[in-house]
């Protein structure tokens, strides 16, 4: 094939892959919303889980307020700190929707496709596998954003949370950078499912509560530094998960000065840079892991073997 032919095929390949992105995103953007039950199951019900954690802080604060030995100044400080903690729970609870989407509709999606027989069709189609994953990511981000924003708005209203957005542009940048890095991570994990079956599915299950814990979805992750050496080790490891730094930065930007600034990891600007680096690393890693594991799965005959 001459160089001119390769060059002339570039627009065609771009069009093809963009169509694949749109085609794979379509069922998540349009199809998923045709089933109106998502409003109850995926926007309202998660708010209840969040409410439970809100009431824990509320109950702890009530005990302080009822304690006659605590001074009035300390009680006022407790009320202020509790409001910020409640707000951080709502924000973290909202971001959980993205993490669950990355785990179950991104990372484990190829396993699901294998189980229902679609994977072989994808493999035979001429588009890039990255376009397929990209479509899943774009659709997943949209689908989850609709759900997460619904939960966030409901949470802010129900729990009367006051958000003080100090730098909206930085907040938007952190949010989108976190999403790109998270879905990049999901794309990397997805490649594992080409080779493995239920082991990887269970890995996804295992990455729920432990990640909620290490990434500080329900408390400021900086709190891990207060529990000794193992906490600091965990916190360091958790910074490799984009949600940890993304949440920390977003909390700093909507609750400025909360808890005397004692519980933040880095400044939001530094965290944004780290998240961007993580995003690039995960996307590149996804590209190579996908190619390598696809080859391995083909060689071992496990690419389309179901129910393994």
């Amino acid at each position: 094939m001459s160089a001119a032919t390769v060059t002339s095929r570039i627009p065609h390949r771009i069009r093809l892959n963009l169509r694949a992105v749109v085609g794979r995103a379509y069922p998540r953007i349009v199809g998923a919303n045709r089933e109106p039950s998502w409003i109850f199951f995926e926007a309202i019900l998660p708010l209840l889980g969040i409410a439970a954690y809100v009431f824990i802080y509320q109950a702890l604060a009530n005990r302080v307020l009822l304690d006659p030995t605590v001074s009035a100044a300390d009680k006022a400080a407790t009320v202020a700190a509790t409001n910020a903690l409640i707000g951080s729970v709502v924000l973290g609870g909202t971001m959980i929707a993205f993490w669950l989407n990355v785990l179950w509709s991104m990372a484990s999606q190829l396993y699901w496709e294998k189980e229902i027989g679609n994977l072989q069709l994808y493999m035979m189609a001429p588009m890039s596998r990255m376009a397929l994953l990209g479509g899943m990511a774009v659709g997943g981000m949209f689908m989850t954003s609709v759900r997460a924003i619904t939960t966030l708005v409901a949470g802010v209203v129900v729990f009367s949370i006051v958000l003080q957005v100090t730098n909206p542009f930085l907040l938007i940048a952190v949010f989108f950078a976190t999403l790109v890095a998270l879905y990049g991570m999901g794309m990397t994990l997805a490649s594992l499912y080409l080779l493995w079956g239920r082991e990887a599915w269970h890995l996804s299950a295992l990455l729920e509560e432990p990640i909620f814990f290490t990434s500080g979805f329900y408390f400021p992750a900086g709190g891990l530094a207060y529990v000794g050496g193992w906490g600091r080790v965990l916190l360091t490891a958790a910074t490799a998960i984009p949600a940890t730094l993304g949440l920390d930065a977003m909390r700093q930007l909507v609750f400025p000065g909360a808890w005397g600034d004692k519980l933040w990891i880095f400044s939001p600007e530094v965290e944004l840079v780290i998240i961007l680096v993580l995003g690039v690393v995960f996307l590149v890693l996804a590209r190579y892991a996908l190619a390598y594991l696809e080859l391995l799965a083909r060689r071992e005959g496990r690419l389309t073997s179901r129910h393994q």
Partner: protein
Amino acid sequence: MSATVRRQWRTFKWAAWLGWEMDSNWTEPALFIVYSVVKPVAGAFILVLMYIVFAAIGNYRDPAMFSYIYVGNSFFIFVGSTLFGTFQVIQADREWYQTLRYTYISPISYYTYIVGRAASKVAVGGLAVLITLIFGVFVLGVQFQMTLGSVPIFFVGLVLGLFCLVSIGICLAGVSFMTAKHTHGLAEGIPGIFYVFCGVLFPLTALPGWAQSFGRGIPLTYWFDLTRRLILPPNTIDSGLGFFSDLEILALLLASSLIFFLLSLGIFKLGEYMARKAGKIDMTTSY
């Protein structure tokens, strides 16, 4: 033993075996046990860190409240595993393995089959509860105090609580016949209702009045309160149910468990009927 009972027992037994194999045969038993325990322990750690952060900010320690939260959370493992163990059967068999149609037309009670499938998850949940409690008592200093006389009431309460949970799980399974791929929404959301309204992690009195009334209508509220009364030392926390004696709570739990059992029969039959009528009994939603 009558033929009907024998048939039901056989269905339960083989469904339980199937459930156990499906849950555990993807790895070595030791790894499976670690896997089963890591999730609930991590869940407990979230609460530990929430308490630590709160205590660090306000410089205020409250060991009684911490024990209250920790024990409630430990027993809540049963809620997640039992509910998920029951209602996910419909969606797993229908959409994932696509075997629902074959199981459904076989000469068994599908209700009993689902209960059997959930049994392994309940058993593994029990192990996780035990490990979480032991870890809490010996590592985190959770206050534990149980008299010998409390043991029978504790176990009767435990059996009734699990019976009630399975009934609620079957109600959800009935609903699942009609819903799309919402297993995770249900798995996160429905336990969330109990998390909030049953005083699992905080006393009912922390809730607004209407929510307290709603919580008092859920049998699990009584189970959690009874369990904490029996295994924690006396404290000053107002659970909102202090006016009931232990036996009164047990009686309430028994009555409400029976009500939920009857409800589960009705809702399951209704869901099944509506799904068949709408042609959704073996529907797949592949987005």
